C-alpha cells in the first residue's frame, strides 16, 4: 500500500491513522518512552531539539502489522522510511505540532521543518522508535534567560515518560553555564483532572488555555544558561 497509490482522501486517513490509531481506533492509549537532546551551541543559543520516541510494544506490533520482514528479520528500510514520512507529516498538524512546545519569556517559538527523521525497529525490545530533530525557526539566546520546553499530548492520548537515565541532556557543544532541569508532571489529582477535562474540544482554543491549565502537568524541561 504505497502512498502514491492512494487517493487524497484515503491518503490522509491512512497517514493519520497510521500515526496513531486514535483516528480510526478511538480507545487505546499509547505510551512513549522519550528522550530529548537540546542543541545549545557554543554561544549559548538553543537551536534545536533532538527527539527519540520509543513506542510501547503493543502499539509497535500493531503499527508493523502486515509489514513483511526481510531475510535476516529486519524490516525493509523503505517501509520504515514511509512510516517516518507519514508520521512527520501528521505531527506537523498545527494542533499537535510535534507535541512539543518551546516557550521563552512567555512566547511560543516557531519551528523550522524537522530534519533527520527516521523510524527504527528495536528487535531486542520489539519496539518501534521515531527519531527527529526539530530546529527552531530562529535560534534563541539563552544567556540570562530560560527556555521552557514542554513535551506532551494535550489530549493525553499519548503518555510520555522520560524515566530512563540520561533521557534529557544538552548537546556537547553547550557551554558549561547551561543546564537542563527536568520537572516531571504532577500526579493528576482529582481537581486537576476536572480542570483538564474542562478543556474545550475546539482545537483552535487549545494552546493558550492549555498552557495555563496544564501547567505542571507536562514533562517540562527548563534550559537556562547563567549570564556570563
Amino acid at each position: 500500500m504505497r502512498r502514491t497509490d492512494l487517493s487524497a482522501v484515503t491518503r490522509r486517513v491512512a497517514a493519520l491513522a497510521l500515526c496513531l490509531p486514535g483516528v480510526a481506533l478511538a480507545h487505546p492509549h499509547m505510551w512513549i518512552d522519550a528522550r530529548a537532546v537540546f542543541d545549545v551551541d557554543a554561544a549559548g543559543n538553543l537551536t534545536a531539539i533532538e527527539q527519540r520516541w520509543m513506542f510501547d510494544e503493543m502499539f509497535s506490533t500493531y503499527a508493523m502489522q502486515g509489514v513483511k520482514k526481510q531475510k535476516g528479520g529486519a524490516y525493509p528500510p523503505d517501509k520504515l522510511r514511509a512510516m517516518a514520512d507519514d508520521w512527520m507529516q501528521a505531527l506537523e498538524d498545527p494542533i499537535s505540532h510535534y507535541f512539543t512546545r518551546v516557550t521563552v519569556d512567555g512566547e511560543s517559538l516557531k519551528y523550522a521543518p524537522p530534519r533527520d527523521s527516521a523510524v527504527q525497529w528495536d528487535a531486542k525490545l520489539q519496539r518501534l522508535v521515531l527519531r527527529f530533530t526539530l530546529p527552531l525557526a530562529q535560534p534563541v539566546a539563552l544567556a540570562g534567560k530560560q527556555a521552557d520546553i514542554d513535551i506532551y499530548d494535550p489530549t493525553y492520548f499519548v503518555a510520555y515518560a522520560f524515566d530512563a537515565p540520561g533521557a534529557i541532556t544538552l548537546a556537547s557543544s553547550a557551554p558549561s553555564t547551561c543546564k537542563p532541569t527536568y520537572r516531571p508532571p504532577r500526579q493528576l489529582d482529582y481537581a486537576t483532572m476536572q480542570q483538564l477535562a474542562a478543556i474545550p474540544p475546539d482545537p483552535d482554543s487549545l494552546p493558550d488555555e492549555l498552557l495555563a491549565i496544564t501547567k505542571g502537568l507536562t514533562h517540562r524541561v527548563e534550559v537556562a544558561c547563567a549570564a556570563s
Partner: protein
Amino acid sequence: MRGIVMQIRRGRVSGHLSDDVSCSDSRLFLSGAWRGLAVVIALGIAVAMAAFWAPAAWAQGTHPFGVPEAARGGTGPEWLSGFFGQVSIWQSHFYRQLTQAVRAWQQDGHAAWTLIGLSFAYGVFHAMGPGHGKAVITAYVLANRQTARNGALLAMLSALVQALVAIAMVLLLAALLNVTAATMNQATWWLEAVSYAVITALGACLVWTRAVRPLWRTRSSSHDDDHDHSHPDADADAPVDGHAHAHHHKSAHDASHAHHHDHVHDDACGCGHAHVPDPALVSGPLNLRRAWSAIAAVGLRPCSGAIIVLVFALSQDFLFAGIASALAMGLGTGLTVAALACLAVGAGALAERIGRSGGSRWLGPLRYGIQALAAIAVLLLGISLLGGQMAMMG
C-alpha cells in the same frame, strides 16, 4: 395508535412497570415525602443516562489524531469529567498489563486467567468511560420503554457483536490477508462510519415514532369515541410502543393507520420496537428482528483495544489468547452497559411510578417526555458522530 393519544390526554394509563423492572424495585424504598425528591432524581438520572455521554462525541474528529474518548475525559459537568478522568486512568492501568499477560499465558496455561481478568476489567472501565455505545443502548431502551431485562440483553448482545467484529476483522485482515495497520484502520473507519449512519437512522426513526408522531396524532385526533382498553393485552401495549394493532377494529380510520404504521416500523424503519405488551410477556424474549438496528449500531464498531490485543497476540503466534481477551473485554463491557441500561429503565420506571402516584394526569406527558428526549438523544448522537467521522475525511 389512537391509544397513546387517548391515554396521554386522559391520563388513563395503566402500565405494568413494576413487572418490567427487574433491576430495582422502587416500592421497597419509596414512601411519603421522599417522593418529590425521588421524582427529581429519577428523572435526572434517566435523562442524564441518555444525554451525558453524548457530548464526548463532539470531541471526535477535531484533533489531527482523532481525539480518543477515553483520553479526553469527555465534556459535561465537572464531577462527571473527573469521574471519566479517573476511569481513564484505571483503564490504562489494565490495558498496559495486557502485553505481559499474553506472554505469561504463553509460558504457563494457568496464567490464562490473568489475561482474561485484565481484559474483563479493561472492558468494564472501557464501558464506564464516555462513549457512544452505552448512550445509544440506554437511550434506545428508554425511548422504547424496553424492560430492564431486554435492555440488559441488548447491551450484552451488542458487546458480543462488537467483540466478534473485532475478532472477525483481525482473522480476516491480519491473519488471513496480512494487511497493514493502515488498511486495518481504514476498515475500522468504514465500520465506524456505517455504525454512525445506523445510529443516525435509528435516531431519526425513533424521533419520528416517539417524539413527532405522538404529537401529530394528538392534534389530528379530533374525537374521543374510540376506546383503547378493549383488549386485556392492549392495555399496556398501546401507550408503550405506539403501535395500535390492538385497536384496528375500532374504526376504518384507525385500522388503516394501524396497519400502515406496523408495516413501516417493521420493514422500512427497522428501528426496533420491542413491545411491552402485557405482564405475561414483559419478561419475554427480546425481539431480535426489531432490535437488530440498535445491536448493529453499537456492535459494528469494533473495540480498538480488542483489535490491538488481537494483533499483538497474532504476532506472538497466540491468536487464541487474543480471542479470549477480546471476548472477556466484551463481557466486561456488556455487563457494565447492561447495568447502566437497567439503571436507566429503573429510573424511568421510578419516575413513572411517582408520576402515577402524584395523579395520573402527568403520567402520559411524562412518559412521552422521557421517550421523546431519549429518541432525540439518539438522533443527535448519531448526527454528531457521523459529522465527526466525515470531518476526518476532509
